[in-house]
């Protein structure tokens, strides 16, 4: 801001900046989209604006929010995690088989699931960083291994049952507030995971993670241990996928298909939030906003009575349009990424 700026010009500048933040294709845009989608939903169905409906929506969105936070950690570090969908499926099936309806087994099995999730993330991370396998292949391989191993173990169809205590997280209420009604545990857990991730991204580790995603070589010259930072991001993603599995298992129960396609939904959510594939840009809050926007769109489709089969097509159009919009704004504003091919260290195609 220069000395010639009058207060009025400053105010209009602030307005313009706010407008740019909302329309700029970054984190703000997704919240503008979210508000827009909700406005349409409320216009169609005014009853949806009441707290119980909104909380039910939040409960349904909670697993995707948790998954998006995990995927965000990996994407911002410049990698991808395709194994989360199949990890969610594996964890739910493992939980059902080991708990088998016995209440005392709940806590030990939860601890075992956490350990298993952390181990899967560790393998993903080490294979990517130490063995130098591109993360898309490493996590794709993990997806195949988990998919096959769980079905091999259970003989094809999931067996056993979850305990009531296990299902509380997915379907129970944490507190019942006056006027608002029951606040589901799932919402509390997702909010806690989001808050923890925001705090993490402000810590030295979070800063290093973003730096590694932006330019791993520069980060490594500055003293960051790139392999350790990225491996921890994969562990975080798998542990959060485990948490999402607890929520999904409790909410929806055990089926052989649980978790299928969730990895792409999570990536869609994160990218819709303006987080750039290839790493180094975007915020946790925007990723959470992306997850909420994806769920809100699904709700809108239901309200519009669109046939469920057309939903993927609309989802596909929206994700392409959203990313194209973000790419256009980014290339217009940032001199570092010219529209033609991008800077030498980060061309658009490198962001795959």
């Amino acid at each position, binding site marked *: 801001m220069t000395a010639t700026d009058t207060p009025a010009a400053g105010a209009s500048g602030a307005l313009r900046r706010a407008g740019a933040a909302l329309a700029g294709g970054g984190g703000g845009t997704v919240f503008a989209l979210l508000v827009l989608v909700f406005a349409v939903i409320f216009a169609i169905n005014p009853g949806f604006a009441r707290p119980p409906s909104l909380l039910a929506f939040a409960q349904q969105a909670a697993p995707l929010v948790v998954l998006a936070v995990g995927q965000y950690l990996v994407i911002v570090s410049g990698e*991808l995690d395709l194994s989360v969908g199949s990890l969610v499926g594996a964890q739910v099936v493992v939980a059902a088989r080991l708990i088998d309806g016995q209440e005392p087994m709940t806590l030990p099995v939860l601890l075992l699931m956490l350990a298993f999730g952390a181990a899967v993330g560790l393998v993903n991370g080490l*294979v990517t960083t130490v*063995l*130098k*396998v*591109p993360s*898309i*292949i*490493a996590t*794709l*391989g*993990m*997806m*195949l*291994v988990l*998919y*096959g*191993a769980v*079905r*091999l173990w259970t003989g*094809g169809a999931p067996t056993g049952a979850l305990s009531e205590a296990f299902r509380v997280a997915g379907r129970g209420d944490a507190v019942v507030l006056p006027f608002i009604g029951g606040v589901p545990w799932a919402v509390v857990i997702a909010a806690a995971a989001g808050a923890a991730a925001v705090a993490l991204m402000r810590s030295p580790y979070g800063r290093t993670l973003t730096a590694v995603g932006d330019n791993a070589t520069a980060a*490594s010259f500055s003293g960051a241990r790139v*392999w350790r930072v990225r491996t921890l991001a994969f562990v975080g993603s798998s542990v959060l996928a485990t948490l999402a599995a607890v929520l999904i298992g409790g909410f929806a129960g055990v089926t052989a298909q649980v978790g299928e396609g969730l990895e*792409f939904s999570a*990536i*869609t959510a994160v*990218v819709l939030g303006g987080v750039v*594939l*290839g790493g180094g840009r975007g915020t946790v809050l925007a990723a959470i906003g992306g997850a909420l926007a994806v769920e809100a769109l699904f709700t809108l489709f239901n309200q519009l009575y669109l*046939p469920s*089969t*057309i*939903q*993927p*097509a*609309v*989802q*596909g*159009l929206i*994700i*392409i349009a959203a*990313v*194209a919009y973000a*790419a*256009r704004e980014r*290339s217009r504003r940032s001199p570092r990424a010219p*529209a*033609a*091919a*991008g*800077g*030498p260290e980060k*061309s*658009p*195609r*490198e*962001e*795959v």
Partner: protein
Amino acid sequence: MSLRLGTTGLVYVALAAILAAGAALAAARGQDLFTTANTVDLLTRSSLLGFVAIGQTLVILCRSLDLSVGYVMALSSVVAATAMAGQTSRIWLGVAAVVVVAGLIGLANGLIVTRLGVNAFITTLGMGLIIKGYLDTRYKGPAGEVPAEFQLFGYTRIGVVPLSFAVMAAVAVLAVVFLRRTRTGVHMYAVGGDAEVARMSGVRADRPLLAAHVLCSVTAGLAGLLIASRFGTGSTLVYSSGYELESIAAVVLGGTYLLGGRGGVGGTVAGVLILATLDTVFNVLGVDPFFKDVLRGAIVIAAVALYARRQVDRAATPPRFPAPSRVPLLRPPRPPEAAARRGGRP
């Protein structure tokens, strides 16, 4: 050149080793891996994945990616079967319709990637979802009918070689010639290696990428034609078979660098044959189908880890400056342990 041959050579050595190991395992169980039925099974499996993987190779060489190929296959099989409508005279109409539809989808992918700056992962994922939505809404089951003459494409054999495999091999040869002998083909390596350097050298970076996306969708369309001719009808559910990820695995298994610029179709064909051999061996040995997934995932990761070692090593010795005491063309592939020792982390 010699280095590229080195990687492709290694893939074929791996293929021979897997064939030998599979044959030995089968023999230990008193079975023969190379019976006519098994060989035909192996080659038939490879022809379908082969078409998709050849196109995927071109896209990956340009540092792009195509996750929509499975959906393009499904759509193409439906387009072919409905356009042919069971009449011999309409076979060419069906084939032409598939090439046009698939080509347009590839063009759309390419334009979104190049003009709108959307990265390929999102573009082709979104395109796949759009096609899936269309197929699921429009068709509730198998659609159309393929005339008996066109079904010959899927079932004719020349000795033990299925016609479809011969066609796939011919397409592979065309692709190799295209990559080595045409301007667009050579530019694909340039753009995949470094788009910025290619641009500064006067290559229009968009064109090879567009061409790769169009060709990739067209080869996926050919795979869809093969499916239509095998099933005798258009099958929408093919998209759930995971061909997009399997084709990427085959390409990477074939030694093509996932970040573009290095590799080739020759290696990809070997990668496809390795995956098909594994499937056939597992079938002959009666391995649990779920255990197959576990093994396949582990093998793909292990193979790519092995190549990654070689690539780290190769980055350390640029091909323009070969070690003075060696003749590059005769240089044997370096054992992976040596590569691992030389190419540690910076």
